[in-house]
């Protein structure tokens, strides 16, 4: 009996030891990532970054740029993320935990433009500077400032290029949308339609589908849309993975020469796809610039209370194509390859 008991104790002890090692290990990596000690954070500026997810290359680039900017300023960065697009609960918890940790400021790409406002308000009430990156909140003044792409303008650029590239043919448009209800998704979609010179209920729009920006879903969606509209000649895509998925379906249907694809994002894979002719043109965003500006703003605020310019700060976008059209400013893929992210 006693032997069995002590055996059991031994097993339990071993399990605790392994748990302790686990905690120890993660603690170490935190120190490595943070650069400074965990305890004395009062003099060091601490910045929280909360992205929508942590696997998307766009947010990875944003996180890396933020880390670089923080390192340059001697600040500490804590990067958190939602578990999936639309994970409001995860983002609210992340905000609360960062405030509890005593950060000076929080950079956030909000999943929902209104779902997390009360958590943001609580954070600001406690003196934490909150800056929205990539996606604006609704209302915009729920945060101290926004550093983002003007997604409507980006959509207009995509639409204008696609329209001009049709050489006067009647547009027959298919839309590969993102996530229904998403602010960025809606703005790009509306911008594209304006750039095409159409309206939401124009007969030229032959079909649309939600892809959640996912390549596999976009491919399936495009396969189905082409069944419905085999003579389509123009495709809007919410982002470059959706464009790649859409192109796979278009190519399989033997319609690659008949259809012009436009996109938005500016990832290195996307630029490469523009070079290969898979995507006709893409509109490049600058997530690194958003992150760097955000980090700089929080460091300035922590030093002497300077607040960034409130409201929307456009971080710019560039049309990337090797087939420029008249009256629309663009850069070629060589420039794109130098300035892309991911």
């Amino acid at each position: 009996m006693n032997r069995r008991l002590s055996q059991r104790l031994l097993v339990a002890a071993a399990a605790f030891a392994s748990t302790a090692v686990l905690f120890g290990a993660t603690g170490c990596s935190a120190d490595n990532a943070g650069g400074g000690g965990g305890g004395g954070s009062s003099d060091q500026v601490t910045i929280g970054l909360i992205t929508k997810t942590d696997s998307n290359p766009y947010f990875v680039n944003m996180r890396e740029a933020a880390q670089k900017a923080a390192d340059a300023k001697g600040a500490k960065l804590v990067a958190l993320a939602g578990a999936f697009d639309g994970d409001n609960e995860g983002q609210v918890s992340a905000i609360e935990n960062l405030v509890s940790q005593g950060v000076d400021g929080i950079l956030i790409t909000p999943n929902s433009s209104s779902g997390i406002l009360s958590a943001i308000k609580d954070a600001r009430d406690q003196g934490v500077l909150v800056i929205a990156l990539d996606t604006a909140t609704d209302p915009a003044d729920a945060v101290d400032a926004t550093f983002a792409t003007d997604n409507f303008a980006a959509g207009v650029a995509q639409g204008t290029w696609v329209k001009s590239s049709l050489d006067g043919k009647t547009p027959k448009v298919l839309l590969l949308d993102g996530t229904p209800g998403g602010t960025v998704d809606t703005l790009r979609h509306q911008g594209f339609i304006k750039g095409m010179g159409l309206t939401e209920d124009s007969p030229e729009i032959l079909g649309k589908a939600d892809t959640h920006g996912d390549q596999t879903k976009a491919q399936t969606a495009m396969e189905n849309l082409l069944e419905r509209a085999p003579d389509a000649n123009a495709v809007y895509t919410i982002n470059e993975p959706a464009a790649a998925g859409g192109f796979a379906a278009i190519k399989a249907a033997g319609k690659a020469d008949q259809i012009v694809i436009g996109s938005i994002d500016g990832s290195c894979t996307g630029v490469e796809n523009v070079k290969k002719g898979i995507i006709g043109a893409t509109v490049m965003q600058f997530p690194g610039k958003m992150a760097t500006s955000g980090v700089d703003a929080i460091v300035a605020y922590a030093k002497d209370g300077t607040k960034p310019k409130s409201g929307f700060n456009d971080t710019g976008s560039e049309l990337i194509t090797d087939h420029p059209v008249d009256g629309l400013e663009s850069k070629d893929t060589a420039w794109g390859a130098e300035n892309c992210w991911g």
Partner: protein
Amino acid sequence: MTTPTMAIKKTPKSTSTVQRARSRVLRSPLFGSTTALILAVIIFTVISPRFIAPGNISLILQQSVVIGILAVAQTLIILTAGIDLSIGAIAVMGTIVMAQVAGAHGPIVAMALTLVVCVVLGTLNGVLVTLLRLPPFIVTLGTFTAIAAATRLLAGSETFQVDGALMTFLGNTVSIGSFRTTYGVIAMFVVYIVCGFALTQTAWGRHVYAVGGNPAAATLSGVKTNRTILSVYVISGIIAMIAAWAALGRIPNADPNAYQNANLETITAVVIGGTSLFGGRGGVLGTLIGTLIVGVLRNGLTLAGVDSLYQNIATGVLVIVAVAVDQFLRGRTSR
């Protein structure tokens, strides 16, 4: 629960009271998870002085409310040797119904209708499992997919802002002595106490364990197996409605895309809490501890400045460690 009787039966009469108490503690299915929770709290307290602050503890509880409540329903279902992959989706459907109806017909109608919708969906699972004798995993996988899609249709892919004091009531703060928390946290504890009482102190509770542990024996001893299982699914619908209400208290927006991982998170909490996935063993107290372990880990690691990717690794490893310890102790005590 069942454990104390088991421990007493197996302990030789000659052993001292101290020894008996010690072996009882060690044999408890809660031993592994409780120790892990205490250990985590101690480590985080050492790492960060902010961790043990009352405000932060309150935060962890608030962050655990929705999953914690849903995990009670999951526990009940897993005790009957079932599993519910749709419970989170039912709650999200609940938030959409509640938010939409509250805008048009006021909060009371909204609450009532949400209750009806959640109970109907829970009952649907139960009917498919009992009457058609389909595996719960398959049934709820199917209903999960269908309910999630129906929710998006119902919402027109929009997010609904929720107004009204009653709708967001569970998000209001309340002071217990000097400890400030939300009504949602209290609601969570009430759900745990009520279900814990029902499981351990009523004939119904014994039937739930019997049905999950050995359905044949339960039937032979006169337990109405189907009725017991069905009752558990109906109750899970009621609990899902409470979770939906709590979710609106926490975030006053009903988003059809929210809580996509809730189903898995409840299973994580149940499993860490030591309830057997094969049914018949475990309880809601373990699930509460399991929920808190996950909450403590996420909060504590953030306070320690650990990247979210490392947090997920830590959570995953802890799930496996907790279950491994639990399995080992179980293997030695019960078989």
